[in-house]
């Protein structure tokens, strides 16, 4: 008895895993079998069944009792073993894509917490399939409001043609009994409309204490020089100078053909001559005195530069 009891659940689980519910082929016959799910109804079936049934376009789910229309492109391998978890994660991802405010977007923590509660309410409504239509509508409203605010034309999420809310329109074309069922489900919605917050929501993305969205400042025109400007301060370079000792080079075709430009030389010569105008030794000494605490190092350093730069000082090493 105990033996049988222990075997049955374990064996059952293994069986579920190994046999495709659609074609009943088992892993024993097909060792490479992979199971796929569609986030529409989360019914599991093997890869070859997906290929066979949905290759020619959308088709209804082959599992008995499930009438949803599935598309091949939406099939994927499941990430979580528990399909309920898989579905919850999918829903949360979808909600988070629309309702993605952070604490910094709100004025007070209280407002942020209220917002989080609304998010959670929407999420659980979708997970537990309570008021699905109204919730979806609300979510869509939020999304459109945000889209209008940010002025983003392309948004990754697009409503699925087979979502329940859209399906409502499809149902309306169907039989009277089904239409009645829709009417009863619609009767539930005023219930949620009575919610005071919902009244505000209808107008768009509107939460208490939400800071106004400030669009990022438009990018400045690109500065190819990156803010650097190297312009002579004390002189203006002319295109040509009539100097006797330069005329020979200036008119030498060999020099000009190779790309040697006299203007480069002019600007260099003028820079060498005049760029010292803006430098004042007193200022530099003052800056140095401010910047450095007096220690022996300063003396040594200037001594070394003097020894290296000054020609009249002999270096005290013989090498």
């Amino acid at each position, binding site marked *: 008895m105990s033996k049988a009891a222990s075997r049955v659940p374990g064996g059952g689980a293994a069986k579920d895993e190994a046999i495709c519910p659609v074609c009943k082929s088992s892993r024993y016959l097909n060792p490479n079998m992979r199971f796929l799910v569609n986030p529409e109804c989360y019914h599991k079936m093997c890869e070859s069944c997906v290929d066979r049934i949905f290759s020619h376009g959308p088709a209804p789910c082959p599992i008995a009792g499930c009438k949803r229309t599935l598309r091949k492109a939406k099939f994927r391998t499941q990430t979580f073993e528990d399909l309920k978890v898989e579905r919850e994660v999918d829903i949360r991802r979808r909600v988070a894509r629309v309702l993605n405010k952070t604490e910094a977007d709100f004025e007070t923590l209280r407002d942020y917490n209220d917002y989080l509660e609304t998010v959670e309410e929407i999420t659980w409504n979708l997970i537990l399939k309570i008021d699905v239509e109204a919730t979806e509508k609300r979510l869509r409203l939020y999304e459109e409001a945000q889209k209008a605010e940010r002025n983003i034309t392309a948004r990754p999420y697009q409503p699925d043609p087979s979502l329940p809310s859209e399906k409502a329109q499809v149902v309306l074309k169907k039989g009277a009994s089904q239409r009645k069922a829709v009417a009863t489900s619609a009767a539930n919605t005023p219930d949620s409309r009575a919610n005071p917050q919902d009244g505000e929501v209808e107008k768009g993305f509107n939460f208490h204490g939400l800071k106004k969205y400030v669009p990022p400042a438009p*990018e400045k*025109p*690109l500065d*190819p*020089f*990156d803010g*650097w400007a*190297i312009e002579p301060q004390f002189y203006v370079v002319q295109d040509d100078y009539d100097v006797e000792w*330069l005329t*020979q*080079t*200036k008119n*030498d*075709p*060999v*020099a*000009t*053909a*190779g*790309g*040697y*430009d*006299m203007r*480069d*030389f002019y*600007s*260099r010569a003028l*820079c060498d001559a005049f760029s010292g105008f803006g430098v004042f*030794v*007193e200022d530099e*000494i003052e800056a140095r*005195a401010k910047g450095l605490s*007096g*220690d*022996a*190092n*300063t*003396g*040594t*350093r*200037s*001594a*070394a*530069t*003097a*020894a*290296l730069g*000054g020609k009249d*000082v002999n*270096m*005290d*090493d*013989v*090498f």
Partner: protein
Amino acid sequence: MASSPLVLSPQPPPSAPSSKFPPSNISKAKALALQHASTAPASPTGTPTPPADTDLDAGAQMNEQVRRQYVITKQIGRGTYADVFSAHLASDPQQLVAIKRIRLQTGWTNGITMDSIREIRFLSELKHPNIILLHAVYSTKDQKISLVLEHLPLGDLEEVWHKHHLPYGNADIKSWMLMLCRAVWFCHSHRVLHRDIKSNNCLIAADGCLKLADFGLARPFADPGRPMTHQVITRYYRPPELLYMARHYGPKVDVWSVGMIMAELAIRNFLCPGETDLQQLAMYCDLFGTPTEETWPGVSKLELYMPPSTQKGMDGTTVATRRGQPASFWKQRFSLLGDEGIELMRGMLTMDPNKRLSSEEVLRHRYWQVAPRPTRKEDLPRRPGSREDGEKRLGEDLKRVAGEREEVEGGRADKVARKLDFGALRR
């Protein structure tokens, strides 16, 4: 000039200086300082910190101080010209640097190699976000100079198009090229010719910023009438006037190299991988047309110029095209760059250096202003792989002798030592 002291005085034998210079070297140094900075208000009179080694002269002490600031962790590159180490600040292990230790070359037994002199000279002057930063210079006990450079762990620009299958687009090319052009413009506006611009020398920092490195062939603009050597710039990037052996040239040589890099990025291959200088020239003539006196005034005066009737084509037997490739060729091959990009690239790759865009005209080109906007440097595609790989690449790039390619793919191993023709200068 230099923020870091370049001190190359060797450590003297312990007895020699004390006998020759009876007064302490420190006091002499202080006396020198006072003498040279006589206008300085109240020079520091506090007691000098007791020196660690009393038998070192002032220069050697400063050298010691700089050297002790860095802790070498490991070697990341080894070459005939230089060894490259990864290191960090002794005070802060988070601050990484790369140390390039130059090996003394056999040809230069007395003194520093020309390359390192140039590198130290220009890097200590040029401070720009797109030029590699030289933190300090010191020498070791065995007389080797070490350059403390910025640590750039994300490889170089050649790797971007060559080694990995990194996807990138026009906006990314624009961003890299803009950073490179800014660096080149900065060099030129300070009257420095880089003379070895190639995608190997465009290193990429940890934040995606491109940095121009390797100033081993740089020099200031020449005086009028002074000849320069034409044996500079790695061959694939060498402009036609240098191949024609022009000895008077200007900053436009660097602009050609930049144009070559842009073409490379667009086609993910070398535009003109010539195996010899003559073949390189033949490729240019095939692509851009053989220059004549009409298209390039004065070209026939250059030493190696060949008129279109004798200029050999790419395969060495036929005569090169006179007119170059038509516009449709460029439009098709470089479609990634867009019309403005092609216009800019062709402006940089103009045979006649006098008609070629200058580095400032390049930055004023409308290519930078039209859509797409250049990618922000943080969003640029990055090399995959670990940081160690990138560090290795940094080591390889820094150890290389300027002007030389170290590529062995396709059996093309031109590891022949570069010869700078200094004798020719005196002619």
